[in-house]
């Protein structure tokens, strides 16, 4: 039996933690006013705005981040899982410094783009690659490649998964299940305003970890399905792992109907293993999308595929383009990251760090009998505030939101910066002491709510 948490107490503690935050963030609060005069909402991305206040960053080094008030944090946000090499890694700094003196943009190919593609080929077992700037652009291309190479329109997407902001996939991400139909027959719900319902028509939404629903869709209209895109491990409803055999079975099911499989590895990419979820699961899809961590903190993304699906790109029937694609600066940074920093031998270090952070938090959960489960995989992990395991998006929605928010505030005031709601990410630069700071803040939270 786990403990029943007292809602009124959580509310009271939240007030206290917010007041503490206001004391520590005077400059961020003042700066938000000035920023609001030039930037819509005072930020350049909706998710930079935090509840209750926005934190303005100043600089970072290794595992640490400093805000404009001079507060130091152990950074477990790492820019939504991007800087797993740590901030301002000397090799990335050097690669950028060298490249910027040689020119950063020509809209012509350079050698580094090929070297990076070679690394990705080896890691993900897919032969042909193209580059973009963001995860949004990569998944958009992956979907178009699936449609172009099958001549079919329908795309299957997992409920609660985020695949970037492009119109074709901006559905059923962080939505209210009450508006999204029954669990086994979810309807697409637009993530945000300004997206016509016509973009929902070619989408079919399925719950994660549920083969039966995919099977039913393929049985009903398999000859119209171009393919399925999914995060092999869900990473934005906390971390949710696939059931044993789920990915391999999807692979088989889709293939039987002539449909394609795309792994959106923007978040798992080179973070959970050198070859991401492909290596981790042993399942090679037709397409893989990458972004975030592969650039070491510089915007870059990639889409890789089999020779068969990339044929439409090679022969030009599906023009794949973009002014900044594989710009020399981005690929120089990616080359340094893949060739010199995230070499296969460093992943053992992530395992040790995982023991300290996830192991430490799991220990606190047990000692305080918290209604929570810890799910982690190497440098990524999260706490689901509910006692039963979380297997899909709707399970995650049923977790305790106010408790999660309070736990996050304790981290901030304890000198740790994790993302609000998203999984944590640590970098190679994080020391055991850094990670223990997060465990200690979590214990302070646990002690307070159970006192």
């Amino acid at each position: 039996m786990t403990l029943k948490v007292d809602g009124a107490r959580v509310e009271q503690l939240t007030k206290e933690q917010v007041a503490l935050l206001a004391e520590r963030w005077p400059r961020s609060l003042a700066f938000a006013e000035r920023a609001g005069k030039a930037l819509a909402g005072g930020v350049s991305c909706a998710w930079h705005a935090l509840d209750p206040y926005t934190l303005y960053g100043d600089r970072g080094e290794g595992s640490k981040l400093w805000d404009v008030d001079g507060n130091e944090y152990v950074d477990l946000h790492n820019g939504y899982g991007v800087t797993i090499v740590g901030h301002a890694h000397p090799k990335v700094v050097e690669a950028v410094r060298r490249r910027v003196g040689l020119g950063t943009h020509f809209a012509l190919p350079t050698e580094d783009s090929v070297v990076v593609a070679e690394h990705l080929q080896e890691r993900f077992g897919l032969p042909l690659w193209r580059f973009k700037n963001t995860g949004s652009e990569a998944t958009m291309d992956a979907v178009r490649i699936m449609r172009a190479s099958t001549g079919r329109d329908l795309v299957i997407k997992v409920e609660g998964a985020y695949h970037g902001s492009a119109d074709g996939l901006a559905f059923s991400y962080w939505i209210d299940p009450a508006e999204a139909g029954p669990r086994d027959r979810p309807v697409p719900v637009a993530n945000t305003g300004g997206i016509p319902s016509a973009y929902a028509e070619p989408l079919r939404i399925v719950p994660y970890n549920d083969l039966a629903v995919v099977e039913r869709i393929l049985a009903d209209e398999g000859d119209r399905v171009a393919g399925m895109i999914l995060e092999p491990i869900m990473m934005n409803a906390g971390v949710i792992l696939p059931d044993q055999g789920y990915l391999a079975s999807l692979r088989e099911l889709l293939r039987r109907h002539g449909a394609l499989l795309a792994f959106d590895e923007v978040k798992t990419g080179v973070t959970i293993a050198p070859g991401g979820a492909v290596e981790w699961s042993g399942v090679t899809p037709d397409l893989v999308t990458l972004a975030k961590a592969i650039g070491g903190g510089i915007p870059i993304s990639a889409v890789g595929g089999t020779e068969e699906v990339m044929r439409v790109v090679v022969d030009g029937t599906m023009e794949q383009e973009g002014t900044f694609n594989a710009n020399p600066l981005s690929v120089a940074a990616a080359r340094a990251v893949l060739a010199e920093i995230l070499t296969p031998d460093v992943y053992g270090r992530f395992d040790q760090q995982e023991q300290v952070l996830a192991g430490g938090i799991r220990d606190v959960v047990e000692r305080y009998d918290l209604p929570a489960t810890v799910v982690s995989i190497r440098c990524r992990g999260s706490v689901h505030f509910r006692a039963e395991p979380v297997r899909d998006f709707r399970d995650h929605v049923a977790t305790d939101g106010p408790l999660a928010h309070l736990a996050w505030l304790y981290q901030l005031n304890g000198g740790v910066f994790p993302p609000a709601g998203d999984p944590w990410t640590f970098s190679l630069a994080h020391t055991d002491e850094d990670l223990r700071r997060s465990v200690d803040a979590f214990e302070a939270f646990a002690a307070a709510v159970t006192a």
Partner: protein
Amino acid sequence: MAVRETVAFDLERIDRLIEEEEAKLEPKHRASLEYRKTAERHVAGGVASSWQDSPPHAIFVERGQGNRLFDIDGNEYIDFHLGYGAMVVGHAHPRIVEAIERAARNGTHFAQPTRDLDVIGENLADRFGLPLWRFCNSGTEATLEAVRLMRANTGRDIILKIEGTYHGHHDSLMFSVVPDPEKIGPREHPVTVPQAMGLPRAFADLVRVVPFNDLDEARRAFQENEGRIAGMIVEPAMMNCGVIMPEPGYLQGLKDLCHEHGAYLAFDEVKTGATIAYGGAVEIFGVTPDIECLAKAIGGGTPCGAIGATEELFGPVVRGEYDMAGTFNGNPLTMAASRAALTEVLTEDAYATFDAVDAAMQEGLRAVIDEHRLPAYVTGVGAKGSVIYSATPVREYRDSIGVDERITYLAWLFQQNRGVFKSPWSKQETWTLSVWHTQDDARRYVENFAAFASAVTG
């Protein structure tokens, strides 16, 4: 335009010249040709973007400095391509180098806002007269958000776009970019033609296409879709078939028309913004749209994009009813480079330099055209310009269909073989100047053009 006697292009002669020039080009690029074979093993088609190929073959680049570009064969070029117009600051500008080095040392990515943001927002507000801004990482992302803003604010679905313009390659605008003349339908009701495979029909139904420089046709589209058009997106000067200027009153007319019908007007200034003038097309043509899309030049050579709009339009974003989001939006590296580009390099003085070099380009090219009585004319403004190979003015995409691509391709080969790198892909004949380009560079371009003119008329 005064009527003047022109010669006709002899296409057979041009075919022969193309063969000669291609034969001259090939030995200069042995290393690039060889390297592409390596590249093709891992990169689809050997290039990272379909348009990084430069027919007849891809040219791999080693480095750039100011107005110069060096390929892996060691060839040096005066660069008028400038990465599809993004590098008006020139390659490896010391101010940009310094800004990027500093940013790299301080951490390049937090997914939290930093203090360069409002400086850039203020600078853009000053240039383009729109108060509020958001940042993203490419022109594609900027126009995607512009379209969504118009839809979110009107609750309507249909977007009006110009035939023959490119606004990035997301699903809502990837139509009638360079449509096949066989498929475009009548001018008064152009067909919305998908530009690539993989675009479902349902997406095309949300886009109506009209010709550039024709208010009556835009009005007709509004009337035929009364209450259903969210807004119109337009390049204020078309930049995809050479530079096509808007006729006097056209842009203001579009704005009035949009507002009469409860819709919005978005300028796609990805190519014109911060290049043709300090305040881009907004300044040159004196019309402020409801939404402004920027990218390319404003990032000083880093992947950037920006969306500016009125407070009214950004209302849903500020209130959080509409998430405008992206992991790399406003990242410190891009913002540092952008801040240096906008506040230290592309100052008002820079535009006086562009205008002076542009005047030399235009004057020189015009003299060659007159001397050889070529069926062509020159158009340009600020850092952008082009030769359009038509005896009659090209006012819209359909006017450019008759221009034979062999002519523009040969003109490209002539420059390429004589030390000038122009944007590849024939009809795009647009040049871009950087702050490093000089009168000498303009002269070289004109001399090469004169060699081309002599050869085709000789």
